């Protein structure tokens, strides 16, 4: 039981530290590229295709 609680405390600490690190990084550089840029890059071919569909339609 005690071991389980330790595990949860460690998880909470790691997540908090990740949050603090992200907050510090965003405070230092508010223009830091976000996850959406990565998603755009991952699905680049699909993005181009969808953009073409939209452009054709809106003329």
């Amino acid at each position, binding site marked *: 039981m005690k071991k*389980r*609680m330790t*595990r*949860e*405390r460690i*998880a*909470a*600490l790691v*997540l*908090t530290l*990740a*949050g*603090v690190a*992200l*907050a510090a990084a*965003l405070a230092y550089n508010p*223009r*830091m590229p*976000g*996850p*959406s840029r990565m*998603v*755009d890059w*991952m*699905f680049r071919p*699909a*993005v181009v295709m*969808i*953009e073409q*569909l*939209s452009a054709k*339609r*809106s003329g």
Partner: protein
Amino acid sequence: MIEKGKISALQMGKMIYLAITPTAILTASGISFNFARQDLWLSPVWAFSGVIAVPVVLGLNRMFPDRSVVQTLRDTVGRLPGWVIGGALWLYYLYISGIVLREYGEFVVGAFLSDTPLIVVLGSLVLVCALAVRGGVEIVGRFADLFLPAFLLLFLLIVLLIIPDLHITYMMPILGDGILPSMKGSLVLQIWFGELSIAWFFLPHVSDRENAKKSLWITFGAIILTLVLSNLVTLLLLGELTGGYSFPFLILARYIDLAEFFAHLEALFMAIWVLGAFVKICVFFYITVIGAAEWMNLADYRPIVFPVALLLTLFGVWVAANYQEMTHTISTSLIPLSFTMFIVLPALIYAIARIRRPGSGNRYSSGRTRK
């Protein structure tokens, strides 16, 4: 499973309805219009993602009735691949929760609280949601119970009051360019319909499992109907201007002026939106927290609620540089990503489970409830 709470099938349906419609009403019509034009109102009918998502999650729940999502992944594809997919799924839910939160923040800051910093708007809602999520699935379910009637009442009130100002000619010619434009308009809506697969997380907690199938299909139909109605009234009021607004339905509420007495009803829309967004963010936040706790093999999810709340608030800020960038992401790259995570992944898991355990697909189809 970490979560011990139980909800009814009806509560699950209400939670899912409120987890999909608020943002769909708010932003989807403006994005869909660029593809569908005057056939915008027809786009929600092509809800292919929902047609796949509902049977897949029901099938998965039939095969693994009392197993959580992460446990199902481990059982199906093995320990290490299950851990990797579970991690990816958690990160995806954190990201999509960030997008939902940012949509809420942009709307509140852009339309009402223009001097309030975005982080304050996001942080305050996440804090309230964190308190609800700590209460567990039952509390989130009761919030859905409580807010759904108010949400529907206010939504229908706005629709009714705008009727005198609608121009039926704005929807003509119906299917003028065939069926394809309305189908293209439904492309972005597949993100929202794919969100029906979040039922995968809630089905193991449903006490009257025999009603779950009916509840999910009714919810699916109600979502389609709501979106057809909201797209229709938006189109009939704004016509060609629909695509030019970030939040077309807000313009609708602002436009209402009945006998110079019922005017400036955007406060009503704000009420709808805050109630709806609260439940929506609670649902996605809950899934993110429970996903993280199961992924890390924790015995209790409550200790990580506030740390995840911090991460979620920051993701809300970090997810895109501005509203335009976020709308671009929603209307382009989020479509294939959501399709992969909401539809392809559960469908693949279901297919693998069926191949590995043939004949087990109908184990609980007779409506047997596991306690």
